């Protein structure tokens, strides 16, 4: 077959205690977008990394463009024409956007870097994604979504035959995804082969030509996207009938029954990030913060958890004014927070799954009242089971887990702490379809029991499905509040748009 660009045959990869890939075959044709699908821990990222030389494969053969290849480092893979966006954004936080885009291939004259050219090239790369940003700002100052866009821009800047995208859209909103798809289609038409990993079925059907499904490190099959229904796809992924997978029904303001206001933010704001606003969170209520990228969702969450200090307004808990000077104080009030950036702010990578799960709980108990190892094992075991965390043992270092499973560990840390208010910033980022439903169900139960939630997601559909109330933000200010029946995707979009016109 002349149109085959990449052929992987019998790829196996073993980690201590885990057979991550078990004789997987994968074939990519020229000019196609090929979705790689599977549950959390199915082996998708490992397959990508075995291709780019991050991991050495134990067995198997890779043929690119008719030539057998065996890159020993991501750098070599790039030289062979393989450009990759890894699941965990691995850029350098303290360099500028421009430097990150051009790193390792800076335009030079006689060995001297031409900074003007670097800047221009970075701007062009960003413009390809229809982004106009200041490329001289430091990367760590950018939101996770923007960092993800930078990683994509960097990958697109390489002249490649093969583009590998491992969950590039996990924190992007609809507009950015659309922008990315335009570029992907253009590249496909130029004859590139693109591998695309995502847990969003809409995106798979929106852009891919073909689908390969992995389960438990094995190949399930290769299908044409147009001939595989959604239900069938999900069934193949989870290995059982998908119709048994129940979506967490939207609780019709069920939590409201619990009644009463729990937390009330009054004219809470911080100069330069969020304008003063009121937010009221009832007991057992799920309140969504919706808005576009940079609308101040994350900033508001950080204020509520005491990560950043508010310089205007105050917060009342159970009707009493409280100080939120640090996460520690917030936790003492019964708050919990999963940040959007799980790699830098969430997981403690080299500690075990067990230690990561009990961390916040132990933090609240303090240094001297250590949980016994039996209690720790019991708690860890319970949440590994409840959230379906795939790990060979509770003692596995968290950095060895797949992305989605790391996210589950983070959720477990806070659920174990039994908070009264849980602030979730992109909690389902990278989590597979089945687990998402499980988690939604679990959260539903906890709200029945009286827990309140602040829910942030770039996936509007998810916000609308889970929240009884949605606070709409734009440019760091509150521009509307929708409640009960009013909550719908159109209503949220309209609220945002209306204020765009006014502004």
């Amino acid at each position, binding site marked *: 077959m002349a149109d085959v660009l990449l052929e992987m045959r019998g790829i196996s990869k*073993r980690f*201590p*205690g*885990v*057979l*991550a890939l*078990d004789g997987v075959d994968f074939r990519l044709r020229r000019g196609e977008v090929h979705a790689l699908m599977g549950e959390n*821990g*199915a*082996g998708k990222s490992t397959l990508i990394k075995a291709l780019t030389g991050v991991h*050495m494969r134990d067995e198997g053969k890779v043929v690119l463009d008719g030539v057998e290849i065996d890159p020993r480092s991501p750098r070599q893979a790039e030289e062979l024409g393989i450009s990759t966006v890894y699941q965990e954004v691995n850029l350098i936080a303290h360099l500028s956007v421009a430097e990150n885009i051009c790193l390792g291939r800076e335009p030079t004259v006689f060995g001297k870097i031409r900074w003007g050219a670097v800047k221009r090239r970075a701007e062009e790369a960003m413009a390809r994604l229809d982004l106009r940003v200041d490329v001289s700002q430091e990367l760590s100052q950018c939101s996770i979504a923007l960092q993800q866009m930078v990683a994509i821009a960097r990958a697109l800047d390489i002249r490649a035959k093969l583009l590998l995208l491992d969950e590039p859209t996990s924190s992007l909103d609809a507009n950015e995804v659309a922008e990315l798809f335009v570029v992907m289609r253009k590249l496909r038409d130029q004859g590139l082969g693109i591998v695309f990993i995502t847990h969003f079925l809409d995106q798979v059907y929106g852009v891919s030509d073909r689908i390969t499904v992995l389960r*438990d*490190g*094995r190949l399930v099959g290769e299908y044409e996207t147009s001939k595989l229904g959604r239900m069938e796809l999900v069934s193949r992924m989870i290995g059982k009938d998908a119709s048994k997978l129940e979506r967490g029904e939207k609780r019709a303001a069920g939590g409201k029954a619990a009644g009463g206001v729990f937390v009330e933010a009054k004219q809470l704001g911080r100069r330069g990030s969020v304008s003063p606003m009121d937010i009221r969170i009832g007991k057992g209520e799920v309140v969504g913060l919706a808005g576009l990228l940079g609308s101040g969702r994350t900033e508001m969450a950080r204020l509520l*958890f005491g*990560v950043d200090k508010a310089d205007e307004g105050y917060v009342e808990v159970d009707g009493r004014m409280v100080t939120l000077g*640090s*996460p*520690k104080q*917030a*936790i*003492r009030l019964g708050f919990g*927070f999963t*940040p959007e950036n799980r790699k*830098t*702010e*969430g*997981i*403690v*990578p*080299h*500690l075990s799954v067990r*230690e990561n799960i009990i*961390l*916040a709980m*132990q*933090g*609240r*108990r*303090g*240094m*001297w*009242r*250590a*949980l016994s190892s039996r209690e720790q094992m019991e708690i860890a075991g319970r949440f590994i089971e409840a959230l379906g965390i*795939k790990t*060979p*043992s509770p*003692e596995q270092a968290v950095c060895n887990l*797949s992305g989605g499973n790391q996210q589950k560990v983070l959720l477990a*840390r806070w659920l174990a702490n039994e908070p009264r208010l849980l602030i979730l910033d992109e909690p389902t980022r990278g989590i597979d379809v089945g687990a998402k439903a499980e988690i939604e169900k679990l959260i539903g139960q906890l709200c029945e029991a009286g827990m309140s939630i602040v829910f942030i997601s770039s996936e509007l559909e998810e916000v609308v499905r889970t929240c009884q109330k949605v606070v709409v933000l734009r440019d760091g200010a509150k521009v509307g509040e929708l409640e009960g029946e009013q909550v719908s995707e159109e209503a949220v979009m309209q609220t945002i748009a209306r204020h765009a016109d006014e502004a």
Partner: protein
Amino acid sequence: MKLDYAEAGSVGRPMPDWLVKLIWPVAALGLLLAFNLAFTSLFFRLEWRDGHLYGSLIDVLNRGSPVMLLALGMTLVIATGGVDLSVGAVMAISGAVAAQMINVPGMPFGLVIAGALAVSVLAGVWNGLLVGIFKIQPIVATLILMVAGRGVAQLITGGQYTTFTDAKLVYVGNGHLFGLPFPVTIVFVMLVVTGLLTRKTALGLFVESVGDNEKATHYAGISSRAVKFMAYVFAGLCAGLAGLVAVSNIKCADSNHAGLFLELDAILAVVVGGTALTGGRFYLLGSIVGALLIQTLTTTMYMRNVSPEIAPVPKAIVIVAVCLLQSPVFRNQMRRIAKWRPA
């Protein structure tokens, strides 16, 4: 993914992490001892005199004690992602305080020890404040006391070599208990105390968590300030004990030379023992083995009449070798080379 218990089972239960980390330093120590067994036969001679054991092996334990004590405190500091350069100078301060106080007529011995340790803890508090609370780079923060500490010791002794003859203070560094030099008992007790302090409370978990990802730890409601502060205070206490042993050894407070460069040996011991300079997981036993390795090297070279000028060279070679063997990158490279050859 498939849970591959079969493979894990074939080697029995996977070895605990701390055991794995102990392999290389213990192997290096074993090799060095084997070398001595072959070439320096005197090394293994033990003698029983006046109810005490004597010999090079005992000497290693005895002379290695100050560095072992320093290494215990240094382990915690390094695990938080920091480093404490001042411990050598703090040893000098502690010794100076002890020597000065013991010469005051009627001063109870307990108060002398308490005084020396209290001053050392105070030094730790100073470092802890600078690093933990004011967020000054550990190297810079502890450099202050490293440089100024010896001056403080000079001030305490009035610029003199203060000698003493008090039997109890002399016993600290020269006495024997259970047939072994008394400092060995101090080290053993401190190892147990440190082990209990870190593993029976949550301190060990907090230290490793702060060192591994400070931001995430902060978000989990753990005060990284307090954790770092405690690590430096504890390092100060350990340095104080080491200073008492050192001053007692020579029955004289020598502000210029007591503990000189020992902070470097302590850092080396910790790194050789498997704790990474970048922070995170720490290994107390590893640090002790690391300290013993360094002392065995020193004693071996002394016995083989290696001139002190070139003595650092073999030391450097052994340490580099152990560190390389611990590096996963290096081991992978080696494995790859080993794999390639037959092809």
